[in-house]
């Protein structure tokens, strides 16, 4: 048991190394879970996952790490869709090595000094049946569940994500019917995917953590694919903060009027409703090569929540301003900008001040996305100060790694003095957090 404990601790260390956050309390939970569940591989995997993995997006990392540590192949999702009783029936018929749980499987005892991997004796239907399911750290991957070499076995080996429901499904249905007819509910190897939503969650997590600095068009496309969930989350969050609150201060007049029904006893307190918050957004997004991906994604997220604000005006810039909008999911700017021009935020501020200053009021939050690199042209931080004076707040979101701030032609130090906050947003996750701060 000590060896198993060590193996679990090593598993936890590996997971932490892969940036899965696991607290000490969760490690203890994992130990208790193992003590309760026993040492059969299938239930052990699920028990450790339930105790250690609190984000479905981390599940793939867990499965891979578990397989490496405990020598099991990936979880058999096809098998996992059958209930325990059904599996028991199925395996009883097959006689091959399996993850079949034994009804009489003993529970692991925390104080037990038995060596790791001593599995309970199994039904002696085949010589190797006693061996493969015991837990032995670092052993070779165990063979998968088989049904006497039927065609469906080979499908189990293929990607569980395979949605090309090929001819084997017919056989599957057939064998399912046969099994049912034989009195059991067992079905042959299914080809169900491990989960549509789980796959999406994993994809979202990966792209959320990829730094904008590492983006190419491929990552950008992936980010846009994953953006729907993020946009929904942001919209809900913002609308909650901006919506009418349930109740505000006590309304004495209505409370006293209501108390007349109870002989003057103030039994029924009445409250004023709170006023909705009015917030205008003015977005300035740099779409020059260095930060274009971050800017486009930000504009798209904000566009999805535009109805939650009183007014949203979005501008993109390089060396001058252009109004931005989304048409059929694509960024459109009016007038078009020269994408090869050299960044000049000083002139952009001047243009904003001369032509659009009327848009700014005390209800306006100005959000700027850019790296503050001005090609050594005048920064015109004085204009930003004037804009900050007119507005509620100026937030500057920087997609550049923090180590590069104030280096080379960056004028961010001059701008920072005039901003309410300078917020790093190196990836999608940080961008979402930064945008929530707007409200």
């Amino acid at each position, binding site marked *: 048991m000590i060896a198993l404990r060590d193996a679990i601790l090593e598993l936890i260390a590996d997971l932490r190394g892969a940036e899965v*956050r696991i*607290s000490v*309390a969760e490690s203890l*939970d994992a130990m*208790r*879970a193992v003590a*309760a*569940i026993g040492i059969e591989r299938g*239930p052990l995997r*699920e*028990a450790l*996952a*339930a*105790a250690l993995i*609190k*984000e*479905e997006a981390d*599940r793939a990392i867990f499965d891979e790490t578990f397989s490496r540590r405990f020598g099991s192949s990936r979880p058999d999702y*096809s098998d*996992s*869709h*059958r*209930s*325990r*009783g059904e*599996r028991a029936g199925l395996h009883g018929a097959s006689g091959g090595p399996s993850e079949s*749980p034994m*009804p009489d499987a003993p529970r692991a005892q925390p104080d037990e000094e038995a060596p790791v991997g001593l599995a309970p004796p199994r039904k002696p239907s085949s010589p190797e049946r006693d061996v493969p399911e015991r837990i032995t750290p670092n052993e070779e991957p165990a063979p998968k569940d088989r049904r006497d070499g039927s065609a469906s076995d080979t499908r189990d080996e293929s990607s569980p994500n395979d*949605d*090309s*429901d*090929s*001819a084997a*499904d017919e056989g*599957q*249905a057939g064998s*399912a*019917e046969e099994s049912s007819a034989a009195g059991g*509910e067992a*079905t042959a190897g*299914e*080809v*169900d*995917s*491990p*989960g*549509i*939503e*789980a796959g999406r*969650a994993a994809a979202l997590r990966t792209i959320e953590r990829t730094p904008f600095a590492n983006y190419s068009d491929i990552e950008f496309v992936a980010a846009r694919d994953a953006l*729907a969930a993020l946009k929904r*989350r942001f919209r*809900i*969050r913002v609308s*909650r903060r901006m*919506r009418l*609150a349930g109740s505000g201060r006590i309304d004495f007049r209505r409370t006293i009027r209501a108390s007349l029904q*109870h002989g003057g*006893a103030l*039994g029924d307190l009445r409250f004023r409703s709170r006023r909705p918050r009015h917030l205008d957004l003015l977005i300035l997004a740099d779409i020059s090569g260095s930060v274009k991906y971050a800017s486009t994604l930000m504009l798209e997220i904000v566009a999805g929540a535009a109805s939650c604000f009183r007014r949203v005006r979005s501008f993109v810039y390089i060396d001058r301003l252009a109004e931005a909008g989304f048409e059929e999911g694509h960024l459109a700017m009016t007038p078009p900008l020269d994408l090869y021009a050299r960044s000049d935020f000083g002139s952009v501020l001047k243009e904003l001040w001369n032509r659009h200053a009327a848009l700014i009021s005390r209800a306006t939050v100005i959000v700027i996305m850019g790296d503050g690199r001005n090609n050594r042209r005048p920064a015109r931080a004085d204009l930003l100060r004037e804009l900050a004076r007119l507005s509620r707040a100026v937030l500057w979101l920087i997609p550049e790694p923090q180590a590069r701030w104030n280096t080379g032609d960056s004028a961010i130090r001059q701008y920072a003095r005039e901003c309410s906050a300078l917020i790093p947003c190196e990836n999608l996750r940080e961008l979402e957090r930064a945008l929530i701060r707007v409200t």
Partner: protein
Amino acid sequence: MDLTQEFVADGLRRAHYITNERVETAVFLALALEKPLLIEGPAGAGKTEVAKVVAELLNTELIRLQCYEGLDEARALYEWNYQKQLLRLQADEHQGLRWEELSDHLFSREYLLERPLLRAISAPRKVVLLIDEIDKADEEFEAFLLELLSDFQVSVPELGTVRAHERPAVVLTSNRARELSDALRRRCLHLFIDFPGIEQERRIIELKVPGLDQRLASAAARMVNAMRKLDLRKPPSIAETLDWARALVRLGIKELDTPSIRATLGVLLKHEDDRVRVEGKVAGLATRPR
């Protein structure tokens, strides 16, 4: 009652909850370790049903707290029955009671309105507490839950600390409308319930809509699975699949072809843009090679 994983698996099966090892293990551990179980997943995947099935399994009461924005302690934990206290006060007015006597009286359990959390904690036997859609509640309420979920006790200033006689089996569900805090996640075992795969959904359909032809059930499950992959605004849930299956039975449809799918699409999809999107692909989905 001997709590084993087999007992849980059999119980879930008896309650007609078609499931997998992941769910069985998580439910068993939540009961064995007396830890709250946080279930996440898309809407309509059967998260709430787990709590109902666990209550059935334990043959006990299910106490449900439906979360919503603005939910506070008064609605979730307890509230003093203000009107009743006032009436009592008026009735006692002329008896010349001292304040100590009066307050002992007024702040007793008789005047306490127990809300779901307090009811679950003070129940004389083990109950199942379902905190449904915790992501809809405010972050402040989530923070308030932390003490309850770790120590199974709450403090009522006038009465003192109320500790659970029997720790309730707690199930929390979330549709991930917002991220839950790490503190809450840490206190719970985690389970993600995704939409079922084709084969599992076929078995659910066969179990719940026995009148549907087996081949048609397979085709329906396959169709719904393909729709879920289209990244719709609201992918069809299991309940909607079952409604669709019932609709097919009711309409006497024997073959799942393009016209019959188009005619019944409203049962599965509840947003016009989703419907338009799927309608354009129905032919492809219906004639998909098997």
